[in-house]
């Protein structure tokens, strides 16, 4: 593929709001997970909650977008000067030439969950102040981002469960290559809600403890929330050495089961191999893998087999979900930013909470942070419905 420059990027999650707090948290092995006290949820589980999401004030002219998911989007967009970088891109390219590609799984469904508690006792109607389009609807966070910046070009939300905000890179790449746009706001925003907390619990997939990826005793995820964004542009003739490039994208489907991965991770292998092929790299070129690593028995087993099959056990890898929780539709975007930070700071984050590595998963899984020059990193994101996406990022100096 033609490499694309991540000219600006930012992330907001339970471990920090913006790049410096996020990097510091990773270096200090900080976990943002705490026992669940979200809303009226009465489950014994841990969550990765972003502090003070509800303090974000949606501009008055966009007040119909007001919901936790769009508040989190706003909070994230205004870290690290990202919104200003978008405005500069709009000034350079024009409002129709900057596309929006956002990933989410549940958008603002929390708004509907709450509205269902306040239905009219006679008619069953939802409260008059409930607005579906700009809160609950899957597109709302893409629509909000487009309206917030006054954009007039293409916009879309990708909603393929937990691969959503990895796959936005694939859609944006195609549209930039096609010449329809010159820059793309890509990212993921997913926020805590009852559907996912009770839903993953119903499947027996939430841990009662902070999640322990790749541990022998791993027993499920910790649901988290995040907003992560990158501005993608064609690279200029001269790049700075620590500029981050998107080099490869691989996508596949398991065609196996709605909520269980292919047991040998066949789809995951295909996605990783396609990303390598697109980046014109060999497995030996990859210095670090940010695993999907949800800490469910089946995900980590399938992913471990897939990674081992392609890479053997020599590539350092870790899941950062012990820090952030599983941020679902935002995970691909969040972990893309973590990969960019890793490349710029020659730093590989350890997997947290893992005490006894599963000996059946034969990987170089990092239990301690490691400082080492990095050239190329790979990030995996998989999801319900058997959707898989792998991204490869590299330093411009590589």
């Amino acid at each position, binding site marked *: 593929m033609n490499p694309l420059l991540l000219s600006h990027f930012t992330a907001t999650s339970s471990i920090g709001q913006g790049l410096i707090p996020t990097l510091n948290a990773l270096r200090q092995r900080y976990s943002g997970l705490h026992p669940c006290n979200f809303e009226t949820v*009465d489950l014994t589980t841990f969550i990765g909650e972003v502090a003070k999401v509800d303090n974000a004030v949606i501009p008055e002219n966009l007040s119909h977008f007001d919901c936790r998911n769009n508040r989190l989007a706003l909070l994230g967009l205004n870290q690290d000067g990202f919104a200003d970088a978008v405005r500069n891109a709009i000034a350079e390219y024009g409002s*129709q030439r900057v596309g929006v590609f956002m990933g989410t*799984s549940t958008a603002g*469904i929390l708004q*509907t*969950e709450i509205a*269902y508690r306040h*239905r009219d006792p006679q*008619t*069953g*109607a*939802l409260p008059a102040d*409930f607005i*579906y*389009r700009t809160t609950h*609807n*899957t*597109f709302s966070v*893409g*629509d909000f981002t487009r309206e917030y910046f006054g954009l*007039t*070009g*293409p*916009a*879309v*939300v*990708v*909603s*393929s*469960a937990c691969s959503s905000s990895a796959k936005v890179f*694939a*859609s944006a790449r*195609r*549209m930039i*290559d*096609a*010449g*329809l746009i010159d820059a793309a706001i890509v990212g993921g925003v997913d926020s805590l809600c*009852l*559907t996912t907390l*009770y*839903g*993953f619990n*119903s*499947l027996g997939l939430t841990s009662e403890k902070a999640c322990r990826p790749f541990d022998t005793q791993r027993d499920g995820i910790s649901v988290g929330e995040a907003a992560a964004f990158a501005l993608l542009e064609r690279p200029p003739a001269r790049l700075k050495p620590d500029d981050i490039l998107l080099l490869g994208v691989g*996508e*596949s*489907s*398991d*065609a*196996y089961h*709605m*909520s269980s991965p292919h047991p040998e991770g*066949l*789809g995951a292998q*295909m996605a990783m191999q396609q990303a390598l092929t697109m980046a014109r790299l060999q497995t030996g070129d990859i210095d670090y893998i940010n695993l999907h690593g949800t800490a469910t028995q089946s995900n980590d087993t399938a992913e471990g087999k897939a990674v081992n099959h392609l890479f053997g056990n020599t590539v350092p890898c870790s899941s950062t979900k012990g820090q952030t929780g599983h941020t679902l539709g935002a995970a691909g975007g969040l972990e893309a930013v973590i990969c960019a930070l890793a490349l710029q700071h020659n730093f590989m984050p350890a997997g947290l909470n893992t005490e006894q590595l599963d000996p059946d998963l034969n990987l170089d899984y990092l239990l301690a942070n490691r400082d080492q020059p990095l050239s190329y990193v790979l990030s995996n994101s998989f999801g*319900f*419905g*058997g*959707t898989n996406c792998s991204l490869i990022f590299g330093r411009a100096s590589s």
Partner: protein
Amino acid sequence: MTTLTAYIDGIGLLGPGLIDWPSSQPILTGQHLYHSQKTILPPPELLASAERRRSGAAVKLTLAVGLEAVTAAGVDATTLPSVFSASGGDGDNCHAICEMLASDDRQISPTRFHNSVHNAASGYWSIATGAMTPASVLSGYDASFGAGLLEAMTQVVIDNTSTILLASDTRYPEPLNSARPISDALGISLVLSPVQTTQSLAKITISLSDAEANQMNNAELEQLRLSIPAGRGLPLLQAIAIQQSTHVVLDYLGNTRIAVDFTPC
């Protein structure tokens, strides 16, 4: 101006009073009268019986139109990347989950939860057909058809591959239907190819435009176009049915629309 070109090799259509593509063509050209009647969703025969029983309207509709399109195109579904575009996920399933979460017993069923994802139809399509190919699963609210068409066209042109677009929308039960009225289930599927084949029905070249969108001449079909997001694609299907070179503008996002230059093969 940037343009993207592809060939349409197969079509699937299912909606109110529109049973399949062959029988809908004379309705779209005005040769046959349009009789509105509730969309009849066939059981998804490709799925195993347990999955068939659990599949909701969105899965049934999407699989039906996708299967019609690949059969018409004479292509193997396992070779096709796919683009699924819908305003929302399965409406009945979402309503059932929200009702339970508002009750004293919040223990929603695991099947309901995994069927609640926006990519449920995509997951079942891959399971039903065995396609391990990439699937893009999109929403653009009322712009979903245009968003799907753009994504599919960029796949065809940039990845130089045939692909299948499956744009489908289903309705919510009350009380959500009042907050998001979608009149009935309607799905449009197109198999698109980067090169002309023996199956090619038409060549389309698309670009972004601010021209006014085409409307349907028939008032009831125009109502379908406006009341179901996937219906925004009906003017394109009408052009295919008429089989004359023409220029059609489809609704997309507000004043940003999609112009289609259409040439029959």
